[in-house]
């Protein structure tokens, strides 16, 4: 079979993209289209399912199979696709409101089951499509249209939540960094099972510069912590490092500790405790914040297990026979023209 030679434009649709000018979604869309083109996998084998929200318009702009569904339910709908069609590559596009508020239940259960879905959570820490209310990732105290005196809702940390929900793959990236985004997409694609990717995405209309600490030219130098598998976790040009103390990840001056004390990142660690500790380094990017893959472990996937059971049943019992099935609970025969006999 020949691999199709695609370019980014093969994954563009003829639909006018209607996000606000300057929205981070444009960058993520471009990263995705370029990534898909590079895979060389037939276009018809991709399915994008989204919920509701600005980000959820995404499938309309990707020339594959897709469904723009209902608020919060994309993981459930995508689970139906992935469970019955392991031959497809199924992606979920969601936002912080869609995935963590109205759809929180589906998100955690999908991750726990390890359905083979790649979930891209566009986190802009605000409700955009409904024009600017606080979201479940907005910081406490945030003044919005629906919280004029400041939000009193304590926010979720999506990476911590996913790790707590038994996710087998959890990563974080940021819209502006296309090559980082694409490397995370690649790793998620290669992972068998659920992958949760939190993408910090700037909403320049309702929550501009929310991620400036890790995207600003000056700020990012000090605040972006790149997690790289097998390498000691250092940042700020090597000046700062992460060590584990009393079960917590701590930021220290690199020269204040023995190099052997610096935490070496291992995304494949079966126990999620250290990945969780790393996720707690930031709660919203208001200072040093890890980006990259927190966790990437192998676990049987739901869809594969479902199909293993079907295959095993067929192996053991043979292909189902309807006539036998309807007679399986005991029958009796009434003979012609009348009379009876038990069987």
């Amino acid at each position, binding site marked *: 079979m020949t691999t199709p030679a695609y370019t980014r434009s093969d994954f563009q649709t003829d639909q006018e993209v209607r996000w606000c000018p300057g929205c981070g979604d444009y960058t993520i869309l471009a990263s995705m289209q370029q990534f898909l083109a590079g895979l060389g996998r037939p276009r*018809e084998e991709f399915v994008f399912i989204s919920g509701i929200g600005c980000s959820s318009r995404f*499938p*309309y702009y990707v020339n594959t199979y897709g469904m723009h569904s209902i608020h919060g339910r994309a993981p459930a709908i995508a*689970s*139906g696709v992935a469970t*019955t069609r392991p031959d497809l590559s199924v992606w979920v596009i969601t936002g912080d409101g869609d995935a963590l508020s109205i759809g929180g239940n589906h998100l955690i259960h999908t991750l726990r089951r390890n359905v083979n879905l790649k979930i891209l959570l566009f986190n802009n820490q605000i409700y955009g499509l409904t024009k600017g209310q606080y979201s479940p990732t907005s910081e406490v105290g945030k003044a919005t249209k629906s919280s004029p005196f400041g939000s009193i809702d304590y926010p979720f940390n999506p990476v911590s939540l996913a790790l707590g929900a038994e996710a087998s793959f959890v990563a974080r990236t940021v819209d502006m960094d296309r090559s980082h985004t694409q490397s995370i997409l690649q790793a998620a694609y290669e992972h068998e099972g659920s992958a949760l990717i939190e993408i910090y995405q700037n909403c320049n209309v309702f929550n501009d510069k929310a991620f400036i600490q890790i995207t600003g030219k000056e700020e990012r130098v000090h605040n972006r912590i790149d997690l790289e598998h097998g390498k000691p976790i250092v940042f700020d040009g090597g000046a700062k490092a992460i060590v584990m103390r009393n079960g917590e990840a701590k930021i220290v001056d690199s020269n204040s500790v023995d190099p052997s004390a610096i935490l070496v990142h291992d995304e494949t660690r079966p126990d999620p405790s250290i990945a969780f500790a790393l996720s707690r380094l930031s709660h919203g990017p208001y200072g040093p914040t890890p980006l990259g893959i927190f966790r990437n472990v192998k676990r049987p996937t739901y869809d594969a297990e479902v199909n293993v059971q079907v295959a095993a049943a067929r192996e053991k019992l043979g292909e189902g026979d309807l006539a036998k099935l309807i*007679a399986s*609970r005991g029958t009796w025969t009434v003979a012609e*023209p009348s009379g009876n006999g038990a069987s």
Partner: protein
Amino acid sequence: MADEIATADPSSTPTEVLDKVVVRFAGDSGDGMQVAGSRFTDASALFGNDLATLPSFPAEIRAPAGTLPGVSSFQVQIADFDILTAGDAPDCLVAMNPAALMKNLEDLRQGGTLVINSDAFDERNLTKAGYVENPLEDGSLDGYRTIKVPMDTLTKEAVKDTGVSGRSVLRSKNFFALGLLAWLFHRPTQPTIEWAEKKFAKSPEVVAANVAAFKAGYNFGITTEATKITFEIKPAVLRPGTYTNINGNTALAWGLIAASKLSGLPLFYGTYPITPASDILHELSRHKNFGVRTFQAEDEIAGVGTAIGAAFAGNLAVTGSSGPGIALKSEAISLAFMTELPLIVINVQRGGPSTGLPTKPEQSDLLFSLYGRHGESPLPVIAASTPSDAFEMAIEAARIALTYMTPVILLSDNYVANGSEPWLLPDVNSLKPIEVSFAEHPNGPDGSFLPYMRNVDTFARPWAIPGTPGLEHRIGGLEKEAISGNVSYEPNNHQLMTDTRAWKVANIANDIPQLEVNGDEDAKILVLGWGSTFGTIRAAARRVRIAGEKVATAHLRYLNPMPNNLGEILRSYDKILIPELNTGQLLKVIRAEFLIDVTGINKVAGEPFKVSEVTEKILEMIK
């Protein structure tokens, strides 16, 4: 000794031949009454009687022992002719404790047979049931043929050498009662013994105890001549063929499997457990060798969500629930309607609203099924009339969903779901295939694919499933431009699409059977029903005819769209009666759609109509 069934002919006691009998087993939830009732039923089915059953159990798994809320019962009518219901009033009541007697005695026919476990009538149990005087001693049971049997004592004695001990000993007393009833009604004993041997094969001591108790009960009848008379019900003259005893949930599950075979599509069932629909999930999950994939989702919404995904991916997709769960699925059902995906939505109705009466039958979700969605979203709605009809209607739901690319609501209710009847098994080779053709080629100019270009006959849009090269497309909840399927906010387009979707569903009326009228051609009154009232209505019509009056009946299996000839039928009668287990829902629809006045007989008492209730109403209207 109770080792063997006594060889004495049970008919050495004088026997009366009956054409039908209604038996109710009643006891504590832990007394095994559902098992006793269903064993009695199966033995009768294998013997060749026609039958119908009505189980009734509390919503609580184990309400406090000995109390009124803890009473569980199972009623069966067996007959030598084709009966239609589980009967109004029992001819024979088995009461395993005072609470069971208190709760059920008023239903027992005067002069009926009462089988009582006298060991349970101690002061503690009598108090729990609310008796001040012991009814076994105060003469209050004089109007019945009462058989008092110390079942605890006799069961203990019977099982003493079988190896069961402690609390397990008395678990077999339902088999003692069953044995006694087998004697009283001349039931074959072998099917029950064989069932116990198979069911408890892993615990030989339990088999031994149950069989010993069963035989002891049977022999107790013979040796003590427990009654002056026993009863015999000859086999019914049913249509020739092979029968099985089936309940509605099982029939529905098998119907879905059959539809999967007939359409060549793998079956997917996305659901969340809920009474009384869960048994459909249980049944389907056993049959993975038919390619069935069941998905027990995190909630009702995910249940329908996974099914919508499975439909998009090319499966025969089904979700199922009861009223409260369907309410949660409502938004997603509208998505399936908007995206025009084939989806079967099963609603096994129960008493509502809210948690309501979760283990009792009611038909109160008809208007909810027809209208319970946001926006203009008419859906095909069909309903099973009897347990075995659920098999056929499940296939029909699939045919409509797949042919017209639409969600279909399939209604059942707790009476259809848990009631049972003999089912003449269909020849599976005679079932009509369901034609499904996935789109494989572009249907637009320049090799483009137009996902909303419709079939000229059915107005169905093409079903292009992921993995098909060249047909990549996006669907969703936003309004679609006709033909292209692109998002459109154009006012005229929304009007066109709303009308088109409604027309597509209305047009299904040309593809369903005409309504048949049963009964007297020159009757002035028509009794119109839908769903589980089928048997009651037919039985009532028989009684009306026996009373010398004329009546016609018709039963709707298609609630939306309704059969084309319905209006004509309605207009040809002076009076129309609609019996419903709700406050008058079909009645409202008929009045609204046909501007015809109709009369209702309505009941929401957690139980089916009695035949007598409907009979009296018909006779009252005739006069």
